[in-house]
């Protein structure tokens, strides 16, 4: 099923300047693999060579960080929004 992926500024140039793209998948892992297959320029930035999530990338389903859900196995359904955000500091 199609899921909207919201991209941070730093990744938009890899997607023709778009801030959201629509990709297929039923888990976060499937969505991210579909995303990097469609936009290979993102692959090294989002996923590690072993397929795990890059240390400085946070991925959210409906604004909940998937590292505290089921990580790449977190299910997604039609209408969910997946967002990718770079890790930044505060304080």
């Amino acid at each position: 099923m199609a899921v909207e992926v919201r991209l941070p500024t730093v990744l938009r140039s890899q997607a023709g300047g778009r801030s959201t793209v629509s990709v297929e998948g039923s888990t976060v892992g499937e969505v991210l693999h579909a995303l990097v297959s469609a936009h290979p320029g993102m692959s090294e930035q989002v996923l590690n060579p072993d397929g795990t999530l890059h240390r400085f990338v946070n991925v959210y389903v409906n604004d909940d960080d998937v590292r505290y859900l089921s990580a790449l196995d977190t299910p997604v359904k039609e209408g969910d929004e997946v967002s990718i955000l770079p890790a930044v500091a505060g304080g």
Partner: protein
Amino acid sequence: MGIARNVLELIGNTPMVDISGLSPNPDVAMVLKLEGRNPGGSVKDRVALSLVERAEADGVLAPGSGQVLLEPTSGNTGIGLALVSRVRGYHLKVVLPTNVSIERRQLLEAFGAEIIESPGEEGSNGAVRLALRLAEEHPEWTMLYQYANEANPEAHYRTTGPEVWRDCPEVTHLVSGLGTSGTLLGVGRYLKEQNPAVQVWAVEPPAGERVEGLRNLDDGYVPPIFEQLGGAQLLDRKTVVRPRDSLEATRRLLSEAGLFVGISTGAALAGAMRCAKQIPAGERATIVIISADDGWKYLSTGVWTDDLDIVTKRAENTIYF
């Protein structure tokens, strides 16, 4: 309460207030801990004092020496350190992104801190990078480095956590903003030691979404203390709250509860509301929310006075955590 010997003794022991009227779940109580009541106006006074006291105990700093402190900050830690520096006799240089609220800057200037600007488009990560470079170039300066110094979460483990437990032992959930991760690590660990069933929720703004100055995601930053102290194992949930929801909640706190608090508190409340909605009906719970600061530093952003669409646009380009 007697007479404090100096302003630093007024840090901590902040009040808590029931805001259950804002809870979306009638079985879930909400309590706000007002860290804006600290003398420097934010939760970061506790951290600043702890960082300086640790360095003094280690012999790195000597009170009254006029030694130079350097710190990257989006504002509140800088203000806390500036306050402590005034009393203890140090000279503070802060590395501050250009896109923080004007009041944060003004307060730093009022307390006598020297401001070194970092590019706003690089966000807080840029401030950290520049400060690390300056620290290397100036070994005579002392960088206490809130992001990597265990005295940061330790301040909350020693003071904020025990205060929450003393005043609200019925706590079932802790919700707080995630910046350096110090508050969550310190208070969260303390509360879980008292009652392992306590759930810890982190709230963060989508700060990295619009940071134009990131060349790639390798420019990202995870505070070393978060990784060293097992932050990922401690947190039960981490959720993003976007500017509009944060601002709406900040307004509701004032209009419905009379509480004039900063935008990050609105974000924390919006996160707590999400948490409350997920607690099954009939299950009693008490969410403690840490309010990092009061509203004074955000008046210029028009949070309470201007059109919400306009304020949301402004907030998207301002660092408020």
